[in-house]
């Protein structure tokens, strides 16, 4: 910098090289344009969230994590895919160190699906890549995601939240099958594609 300061060809840049009114005017315009851009983004978000009923998964429901397996909704015999009277399906999954149970869930395509998950131990994450199905599974709460799948196929289901030293082994699958293929089991059994 020393050589710049002593350069005889350069003279001091005087105060107010840009007039103060000019500065205020430009800054105001810039602020207005930025608020406008953010406003458009906000508008897009609100309108599409209203028309498509898009939300982050936000069902606040508490549950005792220690006694899940003794009975009730998350007893081992009740896990997997259940068919509701209205034709929609509910998938109940336990995320625990270091497995999803069942580790393979089957759902029909183009059908309203409700995933209900909870954890008996620590925090886990539930993610189906290439979809927007993504929720944290926090012990003490039932996490719920509602969606429907438009494409059949096998979706990987990694745990996406650090849950302890076995985290990397916690992978499962969701198989989305055609409505005809989706087996309608007797009311006494839940549907799953886990190895029996």
């Amino acid at each position, binding site marked *: 910098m020393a050589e*710049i300061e002593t350069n005889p060809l350069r*003279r001091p*840049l005087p105060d107010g*090289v840009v007039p103060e009114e000019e500065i205020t005017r430009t800054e105001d315009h810039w602020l207005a344009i930025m608020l406008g851009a953010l406003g458009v983004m906000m508008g897009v978000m609100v309108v599409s969230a209203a028309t498509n*009923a898009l939300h982050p998964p936000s069902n606040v429901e508490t549950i005792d994590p220690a006694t899940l397996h003794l009975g009730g909704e998350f007893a081992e015999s009740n896990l997997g895919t259940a068919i509701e009277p209205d034709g929609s399906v509910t998938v109940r999954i336990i995320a625990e160190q270091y497995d999803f149970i069942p580790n393979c869930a089957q759902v029909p395509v183009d059908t309203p699906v409700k995933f209900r998950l909870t954890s008996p131990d620590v925090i886990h994450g539930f993610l189906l890549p290439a979809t927007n199905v*993504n929720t944290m599974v926090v012990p003490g709460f039932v996490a719920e995601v509602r969606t429907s*799948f438009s494409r059949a196929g096998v979706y990987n289901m990694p745990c996406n939240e650090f849950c302890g030293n076995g985290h990397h082994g916690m992978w499962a699958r969701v198989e989305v099958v055609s409505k005809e293929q989706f087996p309608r089991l007797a009311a006494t059994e839940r549907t799953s594609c886990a190895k029996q």
Partner: protein
Amino acid sequence: MATDEFHHSAAARPEHVAAPIGSEEAVAALRNGPVGALVVASIAVALLFLGWLAFYFLLFIPRGSVG
């Protein structure tokens, strides 16, 4: 020099205030404000804005509705 007592909003003592430098062309060019900066910043923000919209409608929405 511009480092008089009124320049305290940069630093409390003159030796910590930058010695301003410049030329007459700069003064003339800047009379109408920093137009070049406006162009550069506008392009950057426009890219950001369009990219966001593209992600929203081309990636997020096709991945399906959730709630």
